[in-house]
Every structure is written in C-alpha cells, then in structure tokens.
C-alpha cells in the first residue's frame, strides 16, 4: 500500500524517501535532515532505540523492568516501543507499568486513565503508588497548606522516592523513564546555568543510580522529541493505524511550572529550528565534560526514619513530611544558611542520579 492512499486530500510535495527511494517522504528527521517516508521512519526510529539498548547493555535477559508511566507522550511511546522490541528481538524482559498518583484532582485522574488504557492495549501489568498511601498527603492537600510557591520541592522529592518505592514493591531490577534527547540537552544547559559542574558531567549518563536501590535508564537518550511526538500521528491512514495511533494524554500541570526550565526549553527549541543537530551536540558537550572536582561525596547511608538512601540522618522526604505534619511546611525549603547547606548536601545524596529528574511540575514527567 502506498503512503497517502485512501486519503481524501493529496499530500503536498512529491519528494521521495531518501532511504527506500520508492515512497513519498512524510517527515524530515531533525537528527539527519533526511526526508523519509513513514514506513522507513518506523523502521529507523525503532531500530535506533534497539541499537541504543544493545550497545549500552541496558538490560539483561530475565530482568524485571518497570516503565515509569505518566500517561504523557514520552512514557506512552516508550511503553509501546519497548514492549514491541522486547517481543521482536526477544530481550526476555518482564515489563511493568509504574505510575505515581500525586493526588492532583482533574490532572492525575485523567492521565491515570490513559495509563490504564495502555495497560490493556499493551498487556503490561500496572502498579500505581499514591502520595496519599506513601506519605499521608495528596499534592492538593500540600498545596492547600503551603500555597503554590514551593510545591515543586515536594513534587520532585516525593515523586522520585515514590517511583523507587513502587519499583521495590514490583521487585524490579531496573526502572526506565521516557526522558528524551531534548530533555537531556535542556538539563545540560540548566546545569551550566546553575554552575553545577559536578552534575553537568553526570547528567548525560544513560544509566544512573547503579549504587542506589534501583538503577534507572533512559532508552530515549538520543531520540528527538519531534520524532516521539510525530510517531503516533503519522500512522492514521494505515490499516494498522489503530494500533500505532497511541493514546496519550497531554495537558499542562496545574501547579506552577518551573519558569527557569521553561526558558531553557524554549532556547533549545529555538536552536533546533536553526540547527537541529544542536540538541545532540549539547548532549555530546555534556558527555565530554570531565572535570576533576574536589567535592567530597557524602557517605551513603540510610534514613533513620524510613530507610531510604540518604547521606543525612533523615532523607529529604522525611524532613519535608515532618514539616507538613507539624504544621511547619516551610521546613526543608527555607532560606536560612543552615537549611540551604543541608539542602545542598542533600541534593548530592544520591551521587548525581537525581539531575535529570529535576524535570518536574511543568510536565509532571519523571
């Protein structure tokens, strides 16, 4: 079947695909500037991710792997592609969907519905862990108490732990997240803008937290956001369209987006328009930074209260929770020098595995 057949309207531009030379091109790849047809697109898109998985030894046969699923585009496409590749190339993985319910009325309800549909469509077991059951507080309740100003601190700290705890409950060996090349380039820039050179040299790692409870990896590290977004859209005309037209949910988080990150994002998108390779080049720059810092890594220990890894007596989540429960919600996010020092140490507690997870709130991705 030819591309475009059955369409009421004619495709514009008659250029042929530079890969197969037979079908009409449907998109321009940002990575290579090639003009390719949709069939070749699916092939190269999926093959590249397969290569990344194989070349970086992301998984071992027999492993149990949780996919951090937010109902958004990245994790939805990741769940679909990973289960396809697992079957096609016989990775021998047991895949699970893992979602966090922050307790944001209207927002999470809808996106969790999407994840539940994905559970049925892809046949992957789903585990949902909620802030309410883990911490006794929903995000709605936290925001009611502390207002919109500092809630990002809670989101970031709580979500990270919630994923780790969910992964522990599922007894998985690894957690994969949908962070894409654009996200990683953005994080490289943010670490430069914040002067955080120690994190800069680590934030591009494809696998992090190998010393922590559950290693995390990012199979979309080299995958452009444009291609992830277009992937479910391009298939509408085909008979198998029904299967490839992925169901994903998208809307802005109703709680304050991170403005600074927003600027970095926009800057990346502006650069991409002028020179699409910029995204890969920024990642490469991050990878090539090898700066010997004399920062002493804090000793890795466990939180005395909940047992989560922490370099402090109490982990960050427990400090924040203590504040909430004692009616002192600013505890742990205050401005005093002592607390800032604490926080500074605290952000290093996981040996840099945290950097990319700072994508938060604005998107509610992990």
């Amino acid at each position, binding site marked *: 079947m030819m591309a475009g057949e059955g369409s009421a309207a004619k495709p*514009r531009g008659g250029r042929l695909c530079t890969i197969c030379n037979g079908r009409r091109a449907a998109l321009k790849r940002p990575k290579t500037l090639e003009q390719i047809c949709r069939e070749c697109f699916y092939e190269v898109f999926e093959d590249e991710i397969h290569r990344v998985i194989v070349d970086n030894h992301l998984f071992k046969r027999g492993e149990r792997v949780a996919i951090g699923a937010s109902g958004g585009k990245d994790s939805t496409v990741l769940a679909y592609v990973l289960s396809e590749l697992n079957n096609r190339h016989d990775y021998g993985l047991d895949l699970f969907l893992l979602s966090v319910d922050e307790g944001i009325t209207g927002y999470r309800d809808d996106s969790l519905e999407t994840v539940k549909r994905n559970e049925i469509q892809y046949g992957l077991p789903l585990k949902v862990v909620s802030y309410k059951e883990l911490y006794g507080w929903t995000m709605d309740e936290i925001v009611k108490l502390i207002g919109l100003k500092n809630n990002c601190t809670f989101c970031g700290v709580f979500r990270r732990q919630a994923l780790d705890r969910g992964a522990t409950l599922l007894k998985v060996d690894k957690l994969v997240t949908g962070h894409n090349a654009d996200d990683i380039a953005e994080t490289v820039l943010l670490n430069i803008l914040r002067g955080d050179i120690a994190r800069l040299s680590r934030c591009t790692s494809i696998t992090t937290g190998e010393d922590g409870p559950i290693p995390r990896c990012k199979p979309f590290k080299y995958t452009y956001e444009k291609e992830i977004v277009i992937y479910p859209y391009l298939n509408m005309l085909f008979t198998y369209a029904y299967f490839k037209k992925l169901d994903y949910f*998208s809307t802005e988080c109703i709680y304050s987006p991170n403005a600074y990150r927003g600027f970095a994002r926009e800057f990346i998108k502006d650069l991409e328009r002028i020179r699409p390779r910029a995204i890969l080049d920024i990642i490469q720059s991050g990878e090539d930074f090898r700066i010997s810092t004399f920062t002493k890594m804090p000793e890795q220990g466990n939180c005395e209260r909940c047992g989560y890894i922490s370099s402090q007596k109490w982990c960050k989540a427990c400090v924040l929770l203590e504040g909430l429960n004692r009616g002192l919600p600013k505890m742990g996010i205050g401005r005093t020098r002592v607390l800032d020092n604490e926080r500074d140490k605290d952000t290093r507690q996981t040996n840099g595995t945290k950097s990319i997870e700072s994508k938060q709130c604005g998107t509610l991705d992990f």
Partner: protein
Amino acid sequence: MQLTLEFGGGLELLCNSVKIHTVDVEPKAEEKKLTMKHLLSWVHTNLIKERPEMFLKGDTVRPGVLVLINDCDWELSGQLDTVLEDKDVVVFISTLHGG
C-alpha cells in the same frame, strides 16, 4: 474552502478545549491561493481564545509546535509558503508539555 484543523499536545486548550475544527477559510482578496501563512493568522484571529504566544512566535508557529499537512511534515512542503487546497487536513501538535 473547507479545511479540517486538529490541535493536539495541549494546544486544544487554547481553543476552548476543542481538538478538531472544520472551518471555511478563503484566500485574501488580493491573493488567489490560500497559504499556510494566511491560515496561521486566520487561526490566531478566529480560533485561539487565550495565550496565543503558546502557538505563535513572530509570523510562524512557536518552535516546538509540529505541523502536519495531510499527514506530512510541513517542513517538506515549504512551511509558511505551502499552498492549501480544499479538504486539506492540518494538524498542530505542541511538544512543549506532557511527558
């Protein structure tokens, strides 16, 4: 001429949360053809109810907004200069939120 416009990835929130719009758009009187450039300004005037800066930047879409014309990346058809025809389907998808 009749066009089908689809907004996705959160852009539908800018037009009363309606994803698919069937619209009638005519070329400007002095021009014979309807181009994407004209369609964008028509959409801005007639469909976008709030935060137009999420959709447009300068005279084109904001970086990070993908445009498909009849399921084809508009980067292949000349972007703003693409000439539209009756029954064309134009899809706008924001990549900027929703992980």
